[in-house]
Each structure stands twice: as C-alpha cells, then as structure tokens.
C-alpha cells in the first residue's frame, strides 16, 4: 500500500470502538475438533430459503453427501459431515434462536467419504457459470457470520462490473482467531480460493484486508500473494473494521450506497474462511461440512482453534475443551459483539459459527445495575461507524415513534453494537434499534395494505 493510500486510510477511518481484544488463542494451531457420536444439521444455515431434506430417516449417509437442497435461487444445500444413520428429521434448537428443521445423524465413527466427493476439475479452465454451479453444489455460504449464499455473491449484476475482490481477514471481533490462524497456516490456499472467486466475478485485482494487530498473518499473506497479483492492505485495529461497508470504505474510499450492495461500487467481499473453503471444494471436491472456530472465554476450561464438523453440538465442543467452569453466564455463538447468546449447549455448530465463547456470570454482570438514563455523552454518535444517531433511535424506538425513527435512517444500522458497547449508562441500544426496525417495517406494510385497499375500492 502506497503512502498516500495509507494516509487516506487513516483519514477515512471513522467510528468504531476498541474492545479488549482477548485474542489469547491467536498463537494456537488449528486442531481437529471432536468426533461427535451424533450431529444435528439444520436445513437453514444461510440467508434465504430453508432446504428440503433429500434423505429419509434410517438412510445411511456418507461424509459430503447432500442431505438437503432447495429449488430457490437464494439458498444453499447442506451436506452430511459424518458417515452414519439418519435417526430423525426434527425441529431442533438453532443458534439463530428459533427451532429449525434439522437432520440428526448418528455417526458410525468411520467418516467414510461419499463417492460424490471428487475434484470438480481445474477451475482455471472453467467458465464462471461452471464455477458458480460447483460453489452452489458445495453449499458455500459466507463464513464470516452473514451466511449469504456464495454463488449469489459470485453472480455479477448486469452493468455492474466487479473490479476488486476483497478477501476479508480483518477479524475485528474480540476472542475470535479462526481467520487469523487460517491466514497464518493456509495463506496459499486462501489466495488460491481468492483466485477462483476473482475468475468467477471477472475482477481485475484481489485485495486481502488484515487488521494491524495480526503482523504474522500480514506477513504470511504477503508471502503467499507474491507474484499472484495480490495486494495486502493493513487496516487499523478497530471494531467493526471487518463490517463489509466499513471495509470497502477504508480500502477503496467509496461508500456503498444506502440499501445498495458492494457491487454498486465495483467490489465483492468474501471472508478468508470462505476463500479457504472454496479452495478446498475445488482441490478435494469437499463441500462445506466443517469449519474453523475459536473456543474461548473464561467460562470454558480450555481455549482452542478447532476444525469442527458442521452439526456438532456446542456441548460436545465444550466437553472436548475440558467443559464449563464457573457460574453460568452466557454461551455465545460467534463473537461477543455481534454473536448470538444461546440458552443451552444443546445447539449445533452451523456454517456461520465463527466461535463458541463462554463468559462467566461475574464477567458479564459485574457492573452497577443499569439506570438506562441517557446522559447525552454523545459517545454513541461519535463512534457509530454508519454516522447515525443511536441515542435518538433508541429513544424513538422506546416511545414507538416509527416515523421519526425512519427519518433517522434506522434501516441503515448494521447492528454492530458499538453504541451499546460504549454507552456509559448501558442502554440496550441494539435491542431498541432491532425493535425499532421491526416497528418501521410493520408500519410500512400496514400503510401499503391500507393504500392498496383504498385504491382497489376506487
């Protein structure tokens, strides 16, 4: 990165907070995770339509065999991560909070590969359509947590050429180090996956974005990218640097238009984990049946970066790491800033699970009881990466003033949690904003229904 761009990136950086990184697992090699006796594979692990099961109870399935698929475009198939017998197709707790139709598989412990798992051929000689088809069949979704089906992202829209593929290695969430380790241990494979993405979207360049606090990853990615036309951009360490819109702004200087997509500014962003999984898919033909995640937090005995089979229950992962310690606090799937708190360990790892963080009760609730009285300190406005006014959005949401709320561009909020994190009165701003978004959407729908009703009467 040239000096001019480096300086611009400092100037352009805005908003964000500095939570304690707690990345104690950053130096730990990725280990294979537990071999579970049973996996529970939800048929919804992505943004889009729920898959239909394509196996039946008592079927014998193999590793990499497709077990659920959908006719819808915005969806991604799911595959078995073990070999064994399907014991049930049931509603089961899901990290997203609601129960989801899931396929329970009792492992036979042999992990036999499905005959479908074979290299699809050389991606360099494939057309973009062929690459997208392989990616779809492999069940690829964004592994950064968003879970958007990758084949959709790899399909450029007409009139919106994609110039730059950004490989997101920012990993700004505290505790989480899976992407960091992948970059250190599997740099060349990530670059290879990025080249396949670049080919699929017809881009001209690849940028790997890494936060300044991962010097070893920066060095390894630079080495891996040498001669491959890959540029490694070093970003300031600041949450939420890895949020797609912030990342694009800090790398290209362009803002993704409100309610627009990265391709509106000629960019496509993929996580380093996704790039690695795509490499694996083309190298071995292995669909997305496992992922790297970080187990950390003071509520779990051992900390590690593990390669875990999709569908492994959090309970098995935690037991593999020595079990729970201390008074129960929160079990978080993902990072502590945007992850989802689970009420039970009886919930499966899904494609978007970047970490299992267990925090003790005293760690979470050591502070004085919240007064929820805004003292107008202005920190939420100062630190909002989207330049919104969180304190006002929280107040309007609390009062049910949906019109005023919409005027504050509440729908542009990315729910990164910087405002609620920094708030000295511990106002639950993200919660209020989520409620507010619901309210705005509901009101819009109501207005539209009324308008339609009145126009049909005329």
């Amino acid at each position, binding site marked *: 990165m040239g000096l001019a761009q480096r300086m611009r990136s400092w100037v352009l950086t805005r908003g964000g*907070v500095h*939570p304690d990184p707690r990345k104690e697992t950053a130096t730990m090699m990725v280990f294979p995770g537990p071999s579970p006796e049973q996996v529970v594979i939800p048929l919804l692990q992505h943004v889009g339509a729920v898959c239909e099961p394509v196996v039946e109870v008592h079927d014998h399935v193999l590793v990499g065999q497709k077990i659920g698929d959908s006719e819808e475009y915005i969806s991604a198939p799911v595959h078995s991560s073990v070999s064994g017998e399907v014991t049930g197709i049931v509603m089961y707790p899901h990290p997203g909070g609601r129960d989801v139709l899931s396929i329970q598989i009792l492992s036979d412990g042999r992990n036999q590969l499905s005959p479908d798992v074979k290299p699809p051929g050389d991606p360099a000689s494939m057309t973009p359509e062929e690459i997208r088809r392989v990616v779809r069949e492999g069940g690829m979704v964004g592994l950064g947590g968003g879970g958007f089906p990758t084949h959709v992202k790899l399909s450029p829209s007409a009139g919106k050429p994609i110039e730059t593929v950004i490989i997101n290695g920012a990993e700004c969430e*505290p505790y989480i180090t899976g992407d960091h380790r992948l970059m250190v241990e599997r740099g060349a494979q990530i670059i290879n996956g990025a080249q396949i993405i670049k080919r699929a979207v017809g881009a001209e360049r690849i940028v790997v974005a890494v936060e300044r606090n991962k010097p070893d990853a920066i060095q390894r990615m630079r080495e891996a990218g040498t001669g491959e036309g890959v540029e490694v951009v070093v970003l300031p360490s600041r949450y939420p640097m890895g949020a797609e*819109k912030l990342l694009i*702004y800090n790398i290209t200087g362009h*803002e993704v*238009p*409100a309610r*627009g997509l990265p391709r509106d500014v000629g960019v496509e962003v993929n996580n380093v984990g996704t790039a690695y999984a795509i490499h694996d898919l083309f190298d071995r033909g292995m669909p997305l049946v496992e992922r790297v995640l970080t187990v950390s937090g003071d509520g779990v005995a051992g900390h590690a970066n593990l390669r875990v089979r999709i569908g492994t229950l959090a309970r098995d992962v935690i037991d593999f790491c020595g079990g729970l310690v201390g008074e*129960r*606090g*929160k*079990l*978080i799937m993902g990072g*502590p*800033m*945007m*992850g989802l*708190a*689970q*009420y*039970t*360990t*009886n919930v499966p790892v899904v494609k978007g699970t970047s970490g299992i*963080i267990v*925090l003790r*009760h005293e760690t*979470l609730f050591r*502070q*004085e009881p919240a*007064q929820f*009285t*805004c*003292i*107008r*300190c*202005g920190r939420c*406005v*100062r630190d909002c*990466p*989207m*330049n*919104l*006014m969180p*304190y006002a959005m929280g107040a309007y949401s609390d009062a049910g003033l949906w019109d005023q709320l919409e005027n*504050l561009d509440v729908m*542009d909020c990315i*729910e990164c*949690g910087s405002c*609620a*994190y*920094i*708030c*000295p*009165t*511990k106002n*639950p701003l*993200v*919660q209020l904003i*989520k409620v507010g978004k619901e309210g705005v959407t509901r009101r819009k729908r109501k207005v539209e229904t009324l308008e339609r009703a009145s126009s049909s009467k005329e």
Partner: protein
Amino acid sequence: MTMPDNADTPAEQEPRQLFHIGVSPHIRDADTTSSIMGWVIAALLPLTAYSIYICGLSAVTTIFYSIAGAVATEYIIQRIRKVHVTVGDLSAVLTGLLLALTLPPRLPFWMPLIGGAVAIAMGKQVFGGLGHNIFNPALVGRAVLFVSWSKYMTTSYLVDPRAAVVNTSTIKAIDAVTKATPLFAEGQVRKGLLVLDASRYYRPLLFGNPWGCVGEVSALLILLGLAILLYKRLVDWRIPVCYVGTVMVLSRIIGADPIFAALAGGLLLGACFMATDYVTNPMTAWGKVIFAVGCGIVTVVLRFYSSLPEGVMFAILLMNGVTPLIDRYVKPRPYGAIKATARVAEES
C-alpha cells in the same frame, strides 16, 4: 434476564445447564456514569486544591456548602419523587463543585448552600433529573445567586482587584461598574478610563490569580484539567477549542488583547468544564462547533457591549437553550447517503 435454575426445560435438557440470553453486544465498556463523573471531579481536583491553598478556609467553606446543598437537595427531591436515589452517581457532587468554583471565595456560608440547592432543584430535578435538564445546573445556581445577591457576588473576592490595578480616585470615577476582576480593569482600559498593559497579567492569571472566583486561581490548572478530560476522551475537543478560539479572534478584531481575553474571567473554566457538560450541549460534532462558536460570540458581545463585566455564564446558558434546536437540525450524513447530484457527477 435471569433464568431461574428451576425453569421448565425440555425433557432432554439437563437442568442447571441454562445460560443467560440477551441481545448483543455481550460485553460492555468499563466506563459508567459514576466513573465519568469521578474523572471530571478528579480533573478539577488540582485546581480545587490550589484554590484552597490560595484562598484558604473561605474556599473550603464555599466548596463544602455548595456540594452539601446540591447533594442534600438531590437526595430529598428523589425521596419525595419516590424514584431511585442516584446520589451515588456523583453528578450532584460535580454540580456542587462546579458551582463553588464559579463563586467568589468570601461569600457567607448560606449563599453556596442556596446556590447548590437551586442548581439541583431548579436546574436539574425540575426537568426530571440527570440527562433531562436543558440548562447547566451549576450555572443556573450561579445565575440565581448573581441576580439575587449581586452585591455579595461582586465584592466577596479575596483581593479587591480594583485596589490591585488602579488607584482609589479612578475607582470612584468608575464606581458604577460592579464586578471587579482583571477583566473589569481591562474594560476600563478599552473605555479609555485607565491605562493598563494586559500582558502584565498573563503570569498571575496563569499561575496564581487572587482576584477571581474560587475556580479562577490558575488558568494553567484549568488547562491541566482539560488535558485530563481530553486524554480520557471524556469531552470533545471542539467545544473548548472553538469557544476560546472564537473569543480570542473576536477580541483581537475589536482591539482587545486576545491572550488576556482567554485567560481572564471565567472563560477557561466555562469553556472547559461548563460548556462541555454532556447533558446541555449538542450531540453531533458539527452541532458542538456551532454551539461553541455561539458561546464565543455571545461572550464577547456581553463582555464588551453590555453593562455586565463578564459574559461566560449567560452565554453558555443562552446556548444551552439553543441546543435542542441544534440537535434537531444538525445531523451527520449517514454512511452511504450519497446526494443525488454527487452521484450523477461521479458517474459522468
């Protein structure tokens, strides 16, 4: 939020295996209301200590009664309102301390007591308590004392500044003017009533000023307090910088000494600790700039073109009143909200 251990659980669920749930973020910054108030008080402590050293017991009693009045009033009103008593958040202590720092040291004890009570009762609780008041509570308390007992408020200084800067006959000639600080003398200079070299006051104003209020003993220690606030990222630099900057520039334009204008009177204390009060200044960066420049303009107007010798208090109170309006109209441009014209230009 707490999930009891004996809650009904699914059959396969082991009891005592349940966790708390809640919306992200799951971790919070360590700063709380009381820790912030504590740091602002800490930033004022060097100044307070030095003031006690300079002014002696009179400063101690002024500070004590002012804080006592504020805290007692907060406690009593919250008990009457039957709301949670928040004396522990230290905001009433801070209000009392700030009020004391704006008072002359030799007031009778009941004045800071009343001032503290009025600051909390009329300046804060009447609006609904912390976070809801429009005007800076400490300055509300001071304004009430100023208009009710202006004789005490203008003569209770440690050293009569008139004696320090001019001879007695000149004083008699200009006795109509009440408040008496170096600013007073400076005003007389401007009006051609007396000859004065403002620069000879830089040193005492910075290091040891016996003519002013409790909190005006040393401009240097006020700046030290500001440095603490800025280092801890407790206040936005825009307010003190734009406020003092505006006063200096305007003073220079109308022919007064800009450095003297910055150091004398209550400007630094007001710009660093009063105008930066969270509750009563705008939330956005540009809102803060408008607020601070407005404070600066009103201060200079009041200082030089009104019968008042000092304008900081009323300037801040006036701009406090404008703050809701500023917050309504000055909003940051959200990310991605590209203006139609800008986009057309970009595409062509």
